[in-house]
């Protein structure tokens, strides 16, 4: 893969740097390196390990939910309640109902805050953004799109999380210290909580997907061996999504009794987001157009991402219409929609990025065949889980139900079987990781060829403890 003579010289410098670094790293104890980490790459690695653990827990919670919903009646959670609390009879059923609600909420919180965010922001962003920023000549309009996406995400976090902090602090004092911010008996208003929550909550869904957009852009460009199409449009589409994402929150509240004018505004503002999102999807396709595409595992995940995210996006356009949302609100249609953009969108982006950067982060090459199996089994599984949920929602099945009228049994059964298929897919993920560490196939500095143009591919794999002792120059 060696390029010009200058490039060779550069590698030589890096090699020196690496040697020096090995010496430096050698002095660091395990505790110093992993318990008192100050290195962005080590911190990123720790976040990724955390995200994998949390992801497994969140996934197991969802499998328990799907097991319960596999057929009508309450079977699994009554048993769980008697195992955990020693309940029996009606008490076990009641305990099971309570546990089910806890599982649903825990699944959501763990997947969002302990899996997707740590993986994207804590993991990949900590790893790759510092490598790609502040080099001489690295201006805003030369910054890689992943760095752009993380920059925008950082602003979303900065502006939205304080609102959540305020809201949950008020809930805390309402529930424990007798305040009534959200309790009507003391002059409070439960809807105020919903407004505050969704003022955070809607930007949050873009926090979950924007880094994915950035990573997908790198992967599409790398494996098409073409620069990203419409770079500035891609960057500013993300800026637009981030900005408009702050003024659409009440589309989560169409059925709370908002006035006609309020609902009209939120319908309009929400539909606007489809425009920059369309720009992104079409630009990814245009990037591939005329390219020389290699179907390596990260690319397959990225292609799956584009299609499934589009599918989740268009049902979002349907739900943006308050008049139609009236019928679909709080049904499984909404569950299907947001899992298409998150479980099949954000999570596919994370797996794409995992395979893309795994050789860089570990120095070892994963096995393509295992990666392919991982993709296809997961693809079939998650589509089996979530596509039938569109039907359930249209027929009127509400979300967060432990038991449902018998008419919904058919599609629920299909959905549950899909969940077990996805579980098999997850086994292939771990097999791939173990295989790579056992076989120790050396990946080299840049296993992807001349399509991989971002700076991390100029470093050794894994990169030295302190990279860029000689700064790269961006032309």
């Amino acid at each position, binding site marked *: 893969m060696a390029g010009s003579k200058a490039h060779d010289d550069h590698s030589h410098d890096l090699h020196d740097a690496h040697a020096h670094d090995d010496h430096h790293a050698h002095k660091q104890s395990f505790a110093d390196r992993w318990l008192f980490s100050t290195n962005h790459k080590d911190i990123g690695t720790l976040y990724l390990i955390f995200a994998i653990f949390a992801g497994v827990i969140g996934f197991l919670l969802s499998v328990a939910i799907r097991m319960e919903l596999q057929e009508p009646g309450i079977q699994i959670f009554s048993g769980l309640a008697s195992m955990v609390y020693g309940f029996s009879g009606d008490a076990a059923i009641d305990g099971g109902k309570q546990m089910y609600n806890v599982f649903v909420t825990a699944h959501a919180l763990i997947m969002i805050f302990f899996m997707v965010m740590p993986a994207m922001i804590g993991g990949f962003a900590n790893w790759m953004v510092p490598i790609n920023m502040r080099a001489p000549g690295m201006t805003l309009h030369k910054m890689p799109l992943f760095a752009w996406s993380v920059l925008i995400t950082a602003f979303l976090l900065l502006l939205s999380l304080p609102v959540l902090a305020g809201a949950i602090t008020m809930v805390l004092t309402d529930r424990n210290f007798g305040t009534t911010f959200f309790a009507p008996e003391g002059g409070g208003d439960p809807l105020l909580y919903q407004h505050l929550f969704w003022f955070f909550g809607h930007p949050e869904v873009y926090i979950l997907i924007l880094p994915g957009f950035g990573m997908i852009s790198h992967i599409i460009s790398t494996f098409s*061996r073409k620069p990203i199409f419409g770079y500035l449009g891609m960057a500013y589409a993300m800026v637009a999504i981030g900005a408009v994402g702050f003024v659409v929150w009440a589309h989560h509240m169409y059925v709370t009794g908002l006035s006609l004018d309020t609902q009209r505004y939120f319908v309009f503002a929400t539909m606007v987001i489809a425009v920059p999102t369309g720009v992104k999807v079409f630009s990814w396709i245009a990037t591939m157009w005329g390219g020389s595409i290699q179907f390596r595992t990260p690319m397959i995940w990225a292609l799956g991402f584009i299609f499934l995210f589009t599918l989740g996006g268009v049902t979002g356009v349907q739900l943006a219409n308050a008049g*139609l949302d009236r019928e679909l609100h709080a049904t499984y249609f909404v569950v299907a929609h947001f899992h298409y953009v998150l479980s099949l969108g954000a999570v596919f982006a994370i797996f794409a990025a995992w395979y893309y950067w795994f050789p860089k982060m570990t120095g070892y090459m994963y096995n393509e065949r295992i990666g392919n199996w991982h993709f296809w089994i997961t693809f079939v599984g998650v589509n089996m889980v979530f596509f039938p949920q569109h039907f359930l929602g249209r027929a009127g099945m*509400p979300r967060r139900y432990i038991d449902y009228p018998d008419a919904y049994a058919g599609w629920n059964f299909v959905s549950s079987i899909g969940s077990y298929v996805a579980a098999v897919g997850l086994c292939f993920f771990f097999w791939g990781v173990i295989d790579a560490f056992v076989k120790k196939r050396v990946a080299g500095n840049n296993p992807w060829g001349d399509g991989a143009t971002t700076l991390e591919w100029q470093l050794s794999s894994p990169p030295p403890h302190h990279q860029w002792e000689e700064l790269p120059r961006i032309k």
Partner: protein
Amino acid sequence: MIKRAYAALAAMICLLFATGSYADQPRPWETGMQQAATGNMHQIRWFEAYTLWFIIPITLLVLILLLVVMVKFRASKNPVPSKTSHNTLIEVIWTIGPVLILLFLAIPSFNLLTDQLTFPEKIDVTVKATATQWQWNYEYEGSGTSPLAFDSFMLKEPDRAAAGKEDKSKYPRLLAVDNEMVVPVGKNVRVLVTAAPTDVIHSFAMPAFGVRIDAIPGRLNETWFNADREGLYYGQCSELCGKDHSFMPIAIRVVSDDQYKQWLAAAATDLNKANKALMAAVDQPTTVKVAENTAK
């Protein structure tokens, strides 16, 4: 008038999709929405079908483009990648194109929204629905000095026989209740929706009517419907409200105006007897025929 054109279109769509079956409740392996029993729901069904005419082609377009690039521009077919990274015209097209599509969606969407939230000038019946963990209470406005009010709990399986509700196709598990809300057909019914002051948020939903509105402690929400055919309709609580969220269904029985008036008068003294009398009346075969005719 645009509204009339929509109504005609909606009627055509309904004819296309109507299966003739009794569809006021979910059906096995259903893939679409429940049959409409109000004008607003006809409009929702029409609008949903209309949006599909945009979103399915868009999704297929993306899929086809992906397949084309995968076949045409794979490394073995196209070893030397092009260097194109800009094309202002196409970028303008794929920005303006979606804007136009959204305009086409927005116009009927705003009409639908306006129709839903614009109450008819004359309200014939007002019922207040109050949610508590975990049942509904229905209170009828203007019926004498002490207005009619009763609780509506999910029908427990052991109580089926006593209630005369053994037919599970008519009174399905988890949907059937002990006391249904009863309203007259073809009348404007307003529902005031709230939750008990120290309770949690619930949501009043009736899919066949296109109605869904949250029941919030300390707030009085309202919605309306005008059912265009008689029958028994089912909905379920649609906001997570604790342990028995799945077990507080909403059942509305739409009957003729005469039957409604008889029931209302009788229910003031003995609700149970009034319900039994109404059930006996609506289960007569002639009534069923009328309902079927109306549906066509």
